[in-house]
């Protein structure tokens, strides 16, 4: 297995979430749900799994009468994602070099 390759992140549902979070300081839960096109419960399940692994942090915020849930990658999550993306690049690069 390529160094840095993270099987936990590589699961398609989680990879999409982590890739959406990677460039952001934070994103709204609603944005994740609408962009991925999944249900609240399915997304919550994945977010909880990522939270338990220490990859994401969740914060609830109240502004006026509205409440919103913000999700962000932790430093640990960022490092794992960067290592995973780098491992993918290396795998693809190596495959392209083969005759």
């Amino acid at each position, binding site marked *: 297995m390529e160094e840095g390759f993270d099987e936990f992140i590589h699961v398609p549902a989680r990879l999409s979430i982590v890739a959406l979070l990677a460039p952001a*300081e934070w994103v709204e839960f609603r944005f994740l749900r609408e962009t991925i096109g999944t249900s609240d419960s399915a997304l919550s399940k994945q977010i909880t799994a990522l939270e338990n692994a220490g990859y994401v942090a969740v914060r609830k915020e109240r502004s006026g009468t509205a409440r919103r849930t913000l999700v962000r990658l932790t430093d640990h999550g960022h490092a794992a994602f960067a290592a995973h993306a780098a491992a993918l690049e290396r795998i693809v690069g190596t495959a392209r070099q083969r005759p």
Partner: protein
Amino acid sequence: MTPEDALREIRAREDQTTDAALGPVPRWYLVSVAVLLCAVGAVPDYVSGCLPYQAAGIALLLVLSVISNRSRTARLRRSRYTNRSALLVLSMMAAMITAFIGLYVVASLADWSHPSTIGAAAMALAWVLMTPWLNRAMKATLRREP
């Protein structure tokens, strides 16, 4: 999922977040800032000792940007912004200031009344016209997929 598919997925998803974080600029924000810029720039034509009014206008501008930021569904990390994106913002600010000073000087030299108002209107117009451009240019700069 193959590594190639995974990389493609990562880039596409990152671009979706970039798009969400950068725009589009809400119309109410575009118009409110234009009106405020006009008011802040034009005050010297109508009031003596205008500094408190201008300070209040600038404070209101800051409040508007905070409200506008809060309505966004995502915020990009600072590390995502490049030198090129900073240059784009500086170019737009320079264009707005140039429009203000240019028109102000022309109006003063031509002895027109209300030179500050004319300059401020030009600055507000530059804001309205250039903001959508800045938005597109920033997205193009920060997107990962060609």
